């Protein structure tokens, strides 16, 4: 299958990087610039951060005789998204002292610090390290943060998948000591020791690799959106194993139909003790067969579609000690979070705090500080950019309730807003073509007016916006999706499944806010009157013939309606 083509530039960079060191350490000493050397900015992703610049300021900088307003976005590695209250307080302190004063929860159950200046990178990393946290492999061509369903009320099952997430993350972590050397000041390895990356290889993976673990009926982590997913199978109160899902992925490029989002395929089942080996072998198949010449065609989804699913499964089974068994039945209900309070029989409570687009600042930051200062329970970041304050003992619930009230953190929400996500986009993301986080809340306010007219205010409908087609907010699995094309204009997608098992379909091209409202309002109206009992909006628009059903990634761009500019 492999046609010899030149390797992408990043492959050479990785090869020459001396296990991800490059010249990063030297770049930190160059005080005249807030940036790092170009090549190093590719390597720093493996260390968990991106170089960015404030795009709101680009126009003025030249006149001011200053370079672009560079800063860094630093992403933590937090398997399963679980922090202790003490760790939360450290994260908050670092965000205030070393970042822009905000904490950004992401769809990968972690925290992003934004606006970190070059001179603050080392203190930030050291601060995290002090509290047993790190940023290793949070970005880059490696296995990213491993996420798992957030359902602390499921007690043992949640504990099991959280532990699995931690073990998977640890097992697939790069072995290089570069992070510890550069950021923590660990002594360099002495001459005799030869470093190696037995799983990832010395040029690491062809592209990013994402793993998620779902605990049905919760599909909060969107198990079909990742390179590799595990669906816990519970029988007689025990997790007896996991269905294996491979080849999911969101990213695509506008105008390049050979790039497409793909929902993962269920390829089998494995027992709990075989999960790590299964993950490792799938990673090594992707390592050896993934496309290293074209980064837009390098994710596992293309590897699978290029070689065919059967061949891929065969390759995986060849490497496995215990072959994959037939998949077992499962059922998902929703991709959303259960917001508000959940109380267990023994009185233990969990509160899911709705965080609009995951951005925590100001009053909410202060309120969470006060709650964390109680030093009770755990702080769990959800894949929907929300935050669960978990495991609150009955005795402390009144205190938490009082603080939530005092800081105004418990607010009524519409079904649409509760199920909304946006990526960061402008002003910091270098890929953004349009606004996302700064715009979606206003658009939702307009759509809420329409929903209210039709009595749909409390109906759960997923809506996701991204500033570019790369898919950080997993838009292509949403019932309604808006993907940025250019400032003010979006492509509108419809027909994703509420429970996250089906991709959506392009409905309108290049629409602005007015056109989005105009397109959706009549659909809300007919949905309100024509829907069948329990029918979700995403299913309705397919039954009503508004968009064609997308059955596989390869037909994502097919069967477009006339309005979508087919």
């Amino acid at each position, binding site marked *: 299958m492999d046609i010899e083509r030149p390797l992408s530039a990043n492959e050479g960079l990785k090869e020459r990087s001396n296990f991800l060191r490059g010249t990063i350490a030297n770049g930190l000493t160059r*005080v*005249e*610039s*807030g940036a790092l050397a170009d090549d190093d900015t590719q390597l720093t992703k493996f260390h968990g951060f991106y170089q960015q610049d*404030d795009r709101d*300021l680009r126009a*003025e*900088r030249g*006149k*001011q*005789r*200053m*370079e672009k*307003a*560079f*800063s860094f976005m630093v992403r933590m590695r937090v398997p399963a998204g679980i922090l202790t209250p003490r760790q939360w307080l450290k994260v908050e302190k670092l965000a205030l*002292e*070393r970042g822009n004063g905000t904490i950004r929860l992401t769809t990968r159950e972690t925290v992003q610090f934004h606006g970190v*200046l070059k*001179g*603050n990178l080392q*203190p930030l990393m050291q601060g995290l390290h002090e509290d047993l946290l790190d940023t290793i492999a949070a970005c880059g061509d490696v296995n990213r943060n491993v996420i798992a369903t957030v359902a602390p009320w499921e007690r043992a099952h949640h504990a099991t998948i959280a532990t699995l997430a931690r073990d998977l993350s640890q097992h697939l972590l790069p072995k290089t000591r570069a992070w510890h050397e550069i950021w923590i000041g660990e002594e360099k390895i002495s001459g005799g020791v030869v470093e190696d990356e037995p799983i990832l290889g010395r040029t690491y993976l062809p592209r990013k690799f994402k793993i998620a673990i779902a605990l049905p009926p919760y599909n909060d982590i969107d198990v079909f959106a990742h390179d590799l997913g595990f669906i816990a199978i519970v029988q007689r109160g025990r997790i007896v194993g996991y269905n294996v899902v491979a080849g999911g992925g969101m990213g695509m490029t506008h105008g390049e139909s050979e790039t497409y989002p793909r929902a993962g395929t269920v390829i089998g089942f494995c027992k709990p003790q075989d999960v790590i080996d299964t993950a490792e072998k799938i990673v090594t198949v992707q390592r050896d067969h993934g496309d290293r010449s074209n980064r837009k065609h390098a994710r596992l989804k293309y590897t699978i579609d290029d070689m065919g699913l059967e061949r891929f499964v065969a390759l995986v089974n060849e490497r496995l000690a215990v072959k994959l068994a037939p998949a077992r039945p499962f059922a998902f209900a929703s991709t959303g979070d259960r917001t508000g309070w959940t109380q267990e029989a023994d009185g233990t409570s969990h509160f899911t705090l709705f965080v609009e687009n995951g951005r925590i600042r100001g009053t909410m930051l202060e309120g969470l500080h006060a709650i964390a200062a109680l030093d009770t329970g755990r702080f769990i970041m959800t894949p929907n950019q929300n935050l669960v304050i978990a495991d609150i003992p009955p005795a402390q619930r009144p205190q938490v309730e009082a603080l939530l009230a005092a800081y105004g953190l418990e607010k009524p929400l519409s079904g649409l807003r509760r199920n909304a996500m946006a990526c960061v986009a402008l002003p910091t993301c270098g890929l953004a073509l349009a606004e996302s986080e700064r715009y979606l809340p206003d658009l939702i306010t307009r759509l809420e007016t329409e929903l209210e007219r039709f009595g749909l205010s409390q109906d759960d409908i997923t809506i996701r916006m991204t500033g570019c087609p790369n898919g950080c907010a997993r838009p292509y699995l949403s019932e309604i999706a808006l993907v940025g094309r250019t400032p003010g204009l979006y492509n509108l997608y419809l027909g994703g499944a509420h429970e996250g098992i089906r991709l959506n379909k392009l409905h309108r091209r290049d629409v602005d806010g007015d056109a989005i409202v105009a397109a959706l309002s009549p659909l809300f109206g007919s949905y309100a009157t024509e829907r069948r009992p329990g029918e979700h909006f995403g299913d309705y628009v397919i039954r009503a013939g508004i968009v064609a059903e997308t059955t596989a990634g390869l037909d994502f761009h097919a069967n477009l309606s006339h309005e979508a500019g087919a």
Partner: protein
Amino acid sequence: MQTAPLLPSTAPFAEEHIAALNRVISVSTAEQRAWLSGYLAGLQAASGTHAATPAAPPAKRAPLTILFATESGNAEALANQARKVAAKLGFAAKVVDMADFTPAQAAASENLLVVASTWGEGDPPQRAVDFYEALMADDAPRFEKTRYAVLALGDRAYAQFCEIGRRIDERLAALGGARITDRIDCDVDFETPANGWIDATLQRLNAEVGAKDAGASVIHVDFARPGADAPTRARPFEAEITEHARLSGSRSSSDTHHVAVSLEGSGILYEPGDALGVVPSNDPALADAVLNAAGLAGDEALRNALVNRLDITTLTQKQVEDFARETGTPVPPAEWAAGRQVIDLLETAPGKLSAEQLTALLRPLPPRYYSIASSRKAVGEEAHLLVAAVRYAAHGRPRQGVASVDITARHRAGDKLKVFLRANPHFRLPADNDRPIIMVGPGTGLAPFRGFLQEREAVGAGGRNWLVFGHRNYTHDFLYQLELQDWLKSRLLTRLDVAFSRDQPEKRYVQDSLWDARADVYRWLKDGAALYVCGDANAMAKDVHAALLRILADQGRQDEAAAKAELDAIRRDGRYLRDVY
């Protein structure tokens, strides 16, 4: 009410005549005054009479030592002016910097004129500290052979007005010196009273020690000069602004501008390190507020004077007392004036002054000085200024720096600025192009060093150049960042250290950068580097000075006294130079 004198109270007139003359002078133009002085001098020369005694040049030229202590260069300029006057009177006058003189040498002088400025909160100029301390010490020499007079410079806005001049004057008397005439204490508008005092004092001295022959006039007025000469404070050059660009980012807490002016045809030939004086105008809105507070709204002539000619911001204790006397209101406590301005004073008793009283209350509007941020070798007939608009609130009212806001907010490219040169001969690049230099310039203190670097680049100087810059935020306040990057790339700039105070929880300043680099600072100094400091006098320059002492002690493994001696030696060697304000 006492007038703010244009003629000094020491002028040889009755008090009411001084007031009358000042009323005329205060509304006169520079040209009118030049004409008047020339006319009277000429008239007197023609009539062949002279009020004061002498003097043809003394037969044997009497020696005169003119000793100055300067920080900004004003005292030195006056000393040089005094030497000219003295030379014309026939003295064998020499001008000496206190930095290069000892009390013993001064005590050996028969005739001694001291021009001393007071700095900050009653401190001597940095380079005069050794002399001053030796003079005040118990083992100071006696001055019984010496006739002397002291001209003190200061700023009435500070509590310790002319403190250093006063103390030198008293000390010289205590050590047995004979006062030629009473000391004069000059405020920021020192030029007229100072020159009058110099003329009077030297004539008096000449009368005492000079020749017997009274014949020729001693007053020399240079009729040829006006117009043909370099611009002065009284006769500034109208320089067109060729570039006016804000350097601070839009989210900066400061508002710093790059302002380029054309000096074409001005005759101003500056050197890197020099300053450009700018004659500003007041904020018209503040002038209106002052008029309203005084109950004089509608007086256009007065308004014009308030905008263009009078200082309507700075408030001195003397003004507070004068105003209380004039209006019959009680004098507020001594600390009341701190942080307050003229408008606050007027509003304590609104509508009580006549136009004349208000005019008399106010001091003349002084110029402001900006270190030039360019080299003529790089930019031709232009001068670049780095101007940070001063804005703050005090006593419940927003306040603005007069010149900085005038230049940055009320001027644009194409407008004109009134400018003149103020040389700063003690803040120059080393004569030796190969000598390494360390430049410490946070904020607008960067200005002269941009000039230094342009100059060293233009002449191909081989010496190493190390810049230590600081400000608040890296992202929004990195002045001339791209230029500095280019200079690092071309290796003109050998090293750059930065300290941005507000980017992290622990505040960082330039002195912290110096301390962190102490081994290299010490090595550079041992290699003969000259160290320059420009910027804030009160905090930064003192903190940098303390850091240097710590570095010399730490790296030289010596005690504090030895470190101080070493830094003094470096300073006497002309390798520790400051331009602070």
